[in-house]
């Protein structure tokens, strides 16, 4: 798969409908627990960048993890409409 072909699967004009969940510091910064977002982002990383702009998330992608449909995933994971997306700030259980 050539990267350019891959990107063309979701042309920039296509808006995906994504189910976002926010936890901990992201929940407080977003001011909500969840929302349905229409986004032009094609990857988890692009979506996170969009949310950083929108809500002022300060944690970098190296401090944060992405999860799609209740599974951890890579930052370059392609999004598809209907995905449930969450970003995981540094954990502190136990």
């Amino acid at each position, binding site marked *: 798969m050539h990267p350019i072909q891959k990107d063309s699967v979701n042309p920039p004009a296509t808006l995906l409908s994504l189910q976002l969940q926010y936890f901990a510091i992201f929940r407080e910064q977003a001011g909500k627990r969840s929302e349905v977002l229409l986004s032009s982002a094609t990857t988890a990383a692009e979506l996170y960048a969009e949310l950083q702009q929108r809500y002022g998330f300060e944690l970098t992608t190296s401090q944060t993890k992405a999860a799609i449909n209740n599974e951890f995933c890579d930052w370059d994971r392609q999004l598809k409409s209907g995905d449930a997306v969450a970003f995981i700030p*540094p954990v502190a*259980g136990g």
Partner: protein
Amino acid sequence: MPGAFSFCDTPIDPAALQATLNHPAAGGFVAFEGRVRNHNEGQTVVQLEYEAFPELAIKEGLLIMDEAMQRFAIIGAACIHRVGLLEIGDMAIWVGVSAAHRDAAFSACRYIIDEIKQRVPIWKKEHYASGDSGWINCETRTRTRSE
């Protein structure tokens, strides 16, 4: 016996969970309890809040328990984590491991709590005597927020 991992939002009572780990071949049992401390990094903690991403946390927690069952010669392992508002001295997590021999029980218990702290999506917000509060490992990497 598969490893068990669960959440609760009321005080942890490990007795029933520990009973599930009893086995006639189990010569050693090791438990770890994490409790709310009255201080952290020089600040006086008055209260603490745990929040989880339940679906992913249960999945990752069970994965860790399975890893422990595979890596160490243990008979059983169980963990329960509390979420919500906790006071000083409250038990936040309980991990129990039974094994024929103590070495495996100690190693597995340590493995489980270390991995949980690193991998399971649970967050902790401390409320300080100063009135400040902060999400542990989050605020300290950005700036200290005063709320």
